[in-house]
C-alpha cells in the first residue's frame, strides 16, 4: 500500500450488524416479483452472519438487472461495464486484501460477455465471492437467450430457439479450478444467505449460482419453487465427484456442492523494502 493514498484504518466491529444495516435507502428498479429482490435479502443477511462492517465490504457488478445490486446495499459498490465485474473485483481485492469483496452478475453478464474472466477468476483463485443470478435470459435487454437458456426457447432474436446447447456453469467452474461451488434458489432466502456466508468465509474463489426467476420474460420460472430441492449428499472436496454429481442431477439440486482446499491467490502487495529513489539508483552510471 502506498503512502500517498493510505486506506482508512479499518474499525473493529463494536455493535452487531443486522441485515437491514447492509441495505441502502434506494428503491430497486426491478419488476415486481423479480427473483433478484430475495437475492438482495440473502446478501444482506449473509453479511450480517459474517458481521463485517458495511464499509469494509465492496460489492462489484457489471451490467444487467442483477448487476444493479451494489447500490441497494449500504456497502461500497462498483457498478462497472458489462461482463467485467470479476476483473474489477480482482483488481480491488488484490490491491486491497483487507476488504471483503462480493461480485454480482447475471448469466449473460457472467457467462457470455464475461466468460473469459469467469474461467480465469476460477483458476486464479482470488478470495472473492461470486454470485450469479441466473434467469436463463437477458432481462435488461428484454428477453434474449443467454448461455444458460434452453436450446429450444423461442424468442424474437432467435425464433424457434438457438439450437445451441446450454452452458454448464457449475461444471465449468469446477474444471477451471473454483474452490467453492454452490447452487441456490432465490426464493429460499435462508439457505441462500447461509451459503453466501459460507462462500465469504471460504478462502479463495467461491462461486454461487443462484436460480433467480425473471418473471417478466420467463414467467414460467415461477414454477422453479416447486422443482428445487436440497442436495441429498454432503459437499465433497473431490472435484471429479462433484462434477459427476452435477452433470447427472436435475439442475435443481440446491446446496454447497464442492468445497476445496486450494490456497488462495498468492500475489498482492508486500511490505516495501526499497524506496523508488533507491530503485532508480540502479540506472545510475
Amino acid at each position, binding site marked *: 500500500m502506498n503512502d500517498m493514498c493510505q486506506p482508512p484504518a479499518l474499525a473493529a466491529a463494536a455493535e452487531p450488524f443486522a441485515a437491514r444495516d447492509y441495505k441502502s435507502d434506494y428503491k430497486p428498479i426491478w419488476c415486481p416479483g423479480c427473483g433478484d429482490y430475495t437475492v438482495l435479502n440473502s446478501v444482506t443477511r449473509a453479511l450480517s452472519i459474517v458481521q463485517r462492517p458495511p464499509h*469494509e465490504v465492496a460489492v462489484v457488478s457489471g451490467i444487467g438487472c442483477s448487476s444493479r445490486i451494489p447500490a441497494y446495499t449500504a456497502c461500497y459498490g*462498483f*457498478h462497472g461495464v458489462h461482463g*467485467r465485474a470479476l*476483473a*474489477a473485483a480482482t483488481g480491488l481485492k488484490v490491491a486491497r486484501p483487507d476488504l471483503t469483496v462480493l461480485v454480482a452478475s447475471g448469466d449473460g453478464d457472467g457467462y457470455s460477455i464475461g466468460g473469459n474472466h469467469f474461467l480465469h477468476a476460477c483458476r486464479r483463485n482470488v478470495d472473492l465471492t461470486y454470485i450469479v443470478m441466473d434467469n436463463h435470459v437477458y432481462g435488461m435487454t428484454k428477453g434474449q437467450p443467454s448461455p444458460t437458456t434452453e436450446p429450444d426457447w423461442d424468442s424474437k432474436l432467435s425464433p424457434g430457439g438457438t439450437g445451441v446447447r446450454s452452458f454448464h456453469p457449475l461444471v465449468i467452474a469446477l474444471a477451471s479450478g473454483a474452490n467453492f461451488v454452490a447452487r441456490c434458489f432465490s426464493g429460499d432466502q435462508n439457505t441462500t444467505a447461509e451459503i453466501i456466508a459460507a462462500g465469504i468465509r471460504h478462502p479463495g474463489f467461491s462461486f454461487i449460482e443462484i436460480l433467480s426467476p425473471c418473471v417478466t420474460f420467463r414467467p414460467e420460472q415461477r414454477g422453479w419453487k416447486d422443482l428445487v430441492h436440497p442436495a441429498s449428499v454432503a459437499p465433497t472436496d473431490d472435484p471429479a465427484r462433484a462434477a459427476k454429481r452435477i452433470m447427472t442431477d436435475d439442475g435443481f439440486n440446491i446446496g454447497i456442492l464442492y468445497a476445496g482446499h486450494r490456497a488462495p491467490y498468492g*500475489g*498482492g*502487495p508486500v511490505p516495501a523494502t526499497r524506496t523508488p529513489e533507491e530503485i532508480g539508483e540502479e540506472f545510475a552510471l
Partner: protein
Amino acid sequence: MDASITTEQPARAAPAHRLDSVSLAIAGSGGSGVMTAGTWLLDAAARSGLYGLMVRTSGPQIRGGEAAALLRLGTAQLESLDDAFDVLLAIDWQNVHRFADEIPLRADGLLVCDADAGEVPEVFRATGAKVIALPLKKMAKAHPGSWINMLALGITGTLAGLAIEPLEDAVRAGWKRDGEVLQANLRALRAGAEAVAAHALVQRPPAPPSQRRWLLSGNEAAGFGALRGGVRFVAAYPITPATELLEWMAPALAQAGGCLLQAEDELASINMIIGASFGGVPSLTATAGPGLALMTEGIGLAVAAEVPIVVVDVMRGGPSTGIPAKSEQSDLSFAVGGLHGDAPRLVLAPTSISDCAATTQWAVELAEALQAPAIVLSDQFMGQSRAIVAAPELPPPAARRLLAEPHAPDYKRYRDTPSGVSPMAIPGAPGTTYTADGLEHTEAAIPSSQARDHARQLDKRLRKLTGHDYGARWADIEGDGPLAVITFGSASGPVHEAARRAAAQGVPLKRVTLRLLAPLEPELLAQALAGVERVMVVEQNHGAQLLRYLRGIADLPHPHSFHKPGPLPLRPAEICAALVEWAARQEQTA
C-alpha cells in the same frame, strides 16, 4: 563536430551535417548476438563518459532471423538517430539487405564484414563506403569458446574511439562469471580491436562529463516515473513493445510495496486497474495499439466513474496488429478522440527517452488529482531504445487524491464542486459508502437518465480537466521567430536536431514540443504561437493526425505538415531540408 572527437585522417573530415557523434550499426542473423554486442558497446560508451542511444531493429521473426543494433555515441545527450551511419558491421549477410533502408551508410563510412561471408550486397556496396573484409569467423575460431559478436564489439568500439579497458569492463560486467570462456571472449575482443586500430574514426575518448548520467530505456524510464508518481498496482497483458515496461515494474513494484498482475486480456487489465484504483491504490497498465483498442470501454468507465488510472500506450505501426516491433505515432487520433460519448481524458506524450520518467510521473499525478484516466503516448522508438542520458531532475512526487473525510455529513460522491473534483471515499472508510457508476448518475451516485443530471455531470467532468492549471509543463517552447514547428513524442528528438541545423543555415525557428495533448487549451496554443506567421507540424504517421487535431482546436497560421508513417525513423536531415525549403518557398511568394 566536438573537439574531443576528431577523425583520424584529414581526408575523412567531418561533413557539414555531422554533429558531435558517431553512428554505428551491428547487424547479423539468428543467434549471432548483435543485440548483446550493441548493449555492451553502449555500456562501454557509458564507462567512457559518453552519451549514447541504442535502437533495436529486427525482422518479423520471434527469435533468430536478421537483427541490428543501431547506435549513436557522442559527447552530448542524443535524442535522435543521425541521418546516416559511419560504420556498418555485418557478421553475416543473411537477410541483412532488408535493413538497407534503416541503415543508410555514409559514402565516407566503413563497412566491416566477414571476408568469407560472400559478396557484399549491392545495396551496401553502392553507398561507396570503404569495405574492410576481415576473416571474422576464422578469428573467432582462433580463440576457442569465444563468440563472434565479441570480435564485433572490439571492432566497433575501437572504430568509435573507445579504449580497450571500458570494452573489457563491459564484457566482464555482462558476462557475470569468470572462467576460461570469459578469457577467450576477452581475447577475441582484443583481436577485433587490434584488427581495426588503424581505421579508428574517432580518437581518444573524451573526459567523463561532470554530469550524473543514467543508462535506461524509455520503457524503464516510464515505469520508474510511474513508481515515483505513486503507482502501486499494475495489471496488464503482454504486448510488444510495452512488455519491457511491465517486466521492469514487476520486481520494482514488489520492492516498493505494490504488485503486478498478469491479466487474461486487456479488457481484464483495464478493469482490474479501475477496481484497484477504486480501492484507493494508484494504478497503471501498459499496452500498445491493439490493447488500447480493447481498453476503450474501460477507459470510458474510468471517465464516468471518475476513477484515476494511467494507461501507457507504447505505439507501434498500425492499424490492427500492424508492425509490432517498429515505431509509429499513429494512435494519437484514437487516444484523443477514440472513446464513445463525450469523454474528457488526459493525454500526455513524453518528449524524449529520459522525459518518459517525468511525464509518466506527471500523468499519475494528474490522474490522481483530477480523478480521470490519463493516456501516456510513448512509442516503440522511445520505449525500446536504451540511452545514456543526464540523470533526470524529477520533481518531488506530488500525487494527491482528494479524499472524503470519514463520516462526511451529506456525502455525495459526485458532488458538483467549483473545480469539478469531488472528494473520493475509499472502501474501508466509515460513513461514506456509495456506489461508483459508469451509468450516468446524480451527485449522490444514483443512476439517472435525466437530462439535467447528465448535463451537470458532463460539465463537471469536462471542467475539472479544462479548468486545471497545468503550469508551463504542457509544452516546451524554445527559440523564436515568425516560423514555428510543432511536434510531440519521439518526433521531438529529430525535430530539435533539424531545427538546430536549420538555425545554423539561417532559418531560425520557434519550437513547440507538446507534452499535454489533451486537454489542450486553444488560448495556450495561441499564446505559444503569438507573432508566428506560419507553422509546420511534424509527426510520424500517415494521416497528419496531430495537424488535424490541432486545427480542430485552434487556428494555426498557415499550417504546413511534415508527416510520414513508420517504421523508418524520422531523420534530422529530411526534416531540416523540409524546414529550409518551406521557409524559402514562402519568402519567394512574400
